[in-house]
């Protein structure tokens, strides 16, 4: 833990905040991609340390938030089929689709189990040969390699009772989608350190060049984030648009080639729906033809993935950085973690959840006033 403490040291953090203030001469708008970064920023009050005029927008990097509600409804439908054990990561369980959440399906009697790894789901399939075991495969390039490993493991063991509902998404096409939006205001990106640990950052170089935008691969601790912000603002101030790597203790340019090869073997790239955002070309993964027999939708049949109906929820605009939670009339009133209107309020990485938990009464404007004791 000592290693981590260095990156949480208040004195170091304040030194970086001072450096940011020194190099900043005009307003800039940055976006952190990853929901884990959003939570760290809000939890540690990083945004409160930045000079006026520096705006942090919170990006679409919450895997739970961008999973289309139609896919969640399909998950609930599959979990209700006779004999099914439905396995999911913990923070997906509470997210509402159009017809409740997996937790409410569990409360009604479905056998929904929380797992920590897709390989746990494979083990459940091995131990329950007379049951159909389905894994809900969601997440970015960080979780996709373990999903791929689970497919390969199930194949190796010859399991015929294991399948998965796949809704994996990819970061670079989402960044391109955001930058191509005429409403875009983002001038620099903090790329997600964990995703780049797997994928490297070579994929981001053409994006930085094509759109003339700085991209800094950034970690998750307070000092990481401040360092990433500093590098990004320096580039903007100096008129550079490069890919830089703040998170060099974990990320290499090439990334983890073994994981990338595994992804390429098990999955094929496809157009993908993002909750609240819509379809983005080449931004999702589906099982490659050689592994299609593990596709739960094909195995169970008769389950339609309906298009999203966001209703009152503005999570799409929040995920694109066009609005903040405070801009939503339902925030903290009709929409709370107990009764969420959209996924950004539920997931532990969701922007609305972060603001609800850490900044409820002001929804992100000013720091807590110091009261005299």
């Amino acid at each position, binding site marked *: 833990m000592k290693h981590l403490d260095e990156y949480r040291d*208040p004195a170091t*953090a304040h030194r970086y905040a001072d450096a940011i203030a020194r190099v900043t001469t005009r307003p800039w708008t940055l976006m952190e991609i990853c929901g*884990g970064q959003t939570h760290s920023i809000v939890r540690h009050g990083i945004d409160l340390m930045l000079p006026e005029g520096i705006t942090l927008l919170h990006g679409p990097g919450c895997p*739970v938030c961008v999973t289309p509600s139609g896919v969640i409804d399909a998950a609930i439908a599959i979990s209700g089929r006779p004999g099914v054990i439905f396995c999911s990561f*913990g923070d997906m369980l509470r997210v509402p689709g159009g017809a409740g959440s997996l937790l409410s399906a569990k409360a009604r009697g479905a056998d929904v189990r929380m797992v920590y790894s897709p390989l746990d789901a494979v083990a459940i399939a091995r131990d329950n040969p007379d049951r159909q075991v389905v894994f809900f495969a969601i997440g970015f390039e960080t979780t996709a390699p373990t999903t791929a490993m689970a497919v390969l493991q199930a194949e190796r063991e010859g399991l015929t009772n294991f399948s998965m509902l796949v809704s994996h998404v990819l970061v670079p096409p989402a960044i391109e989608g955001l930058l191509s939006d005429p409403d875009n205001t983002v001038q620099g990106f903090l790329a997600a350190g*964990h995703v780049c640990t797997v994928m490297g950052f070579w994929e981001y170089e053409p994006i930085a060049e094509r759109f003339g935008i700085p991209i800094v691969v950034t970690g998750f601790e307070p000092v990481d984030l401040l360092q990433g912000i500093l590098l990004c603002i320096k580039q903007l101030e100096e008129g550079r648009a490069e890919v830089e790597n703040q998170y060099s203790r974990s990320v290499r340019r090439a990334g983890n080639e073994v994981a990338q090869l595994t992804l390429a073997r098990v999955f094929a790239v496809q157009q993908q729906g993002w909750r609240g955002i819509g379809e983005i070309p080449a931004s999702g993964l589906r099982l490659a033809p050689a592994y299609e027999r593990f596709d739960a939708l094909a195995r169970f049949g008769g389950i339609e993935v309906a298009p999203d109906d966001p209703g009152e929820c503005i999570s799409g605009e929040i995920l694109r950085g066009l609005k903040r939670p405070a801009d939503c009339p339902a925030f903290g009133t009709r929409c709370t973690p107990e009764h969420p209107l959209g996924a950004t309020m539920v997931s*532990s990485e969701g922007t609305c959840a972060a603001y609800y938990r*850490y900044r409820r009464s002001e929804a992100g404007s000013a720091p807590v006033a110091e*009261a005299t*004791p």
Partner: protein
Amino acid sequence: MSFDLSCPVPFTATDTIEIGHGGGGMMTKRLVDGLFRPAFGAGPDDLNHDGAILDVGGELLAFTTDSFVVKPLFFPGGDIGSLAINGTVNDLAMCGAEPVGISVGLILEEGLPIAELQRIIGSMEAAAEAAGARIVTGDTKVVEHGKGDGLYINTSGVGRVIAPAPINPRQAAPGDMVILSGDIGRHGIAIMAVREGLGFETEIVSDCAPLIAPVKTLISAGVPLRCLRDLTRGGLATALIEIAETAGLTVRLDQKAIAISDAVRGACEILGLDPLYVANEGRFVAFVPASAAETALGIMRSFNPAAAVIGRVERRRERGEVVLDTIGGLRPLDLLSGEQLPRIC
């Protein structure tokens, strides 16, 4: 207690009971405030502490009840039996009372091995003896196979109040110091590690323990105890939020002073859990006037060297019953909705 004059919020957003209703967070609070409290005619202060104080012919008795549904039944540092006795003994201790008699209600599932039951009963006996408590009455029911997790236990306890002054959140006052009796998060992580088969390098052992001895020592040393609370489900944050809310005060916490073992911290980092909200079964917080803090801390350290002053009570801030010092400024802590769920990546 503040009153909201706006339209009443329905006490639950779901039409069935979900796991989160038992998590000790906002969902539990809504159920208690929206259904139980009005139905049982309870006042704003009733049901808000670990036990009730009853005046029986001039003698003050503490009365408390608790149910135990832990899975697995056995875990590093204890089992459901020791948990059930310590839980009730500790609730009495938090009322400033020593146990007089404890009842045990057992709900057994068909198929539970007798050997396991013997082990659990044995550890209940040992826990009661260690706490100086007697098990005086009980009940046994059996449910069909598949209708229970082997064994559920309810314990209730009656205790004699030995503290000279009332101990409850209303007694807390600005300037009071908040002392935590040891490191936090062990029980919740120990249970999760066994239940989910998570292998950590170091085995994390539950903190399950009776708290009557430190409380009695504090009382006999004459420490004016304003409020005591054992940290169970919902962890340190939930306990402090409930106290501060009832007291109408703010607790300002010093994050660095809160002891968390490296093993628990590491597990929480990996799982994306906040240790401030992870369950404990042998830790408590004491609110004492600043003048008595040093004496109280000395006594608590003699029982656990990791005891520390973790914060102080202030007049109520505009928002936030409990605030935590962070790098960028003060951050309010809130009740979680239901249970903490591990994150994806």
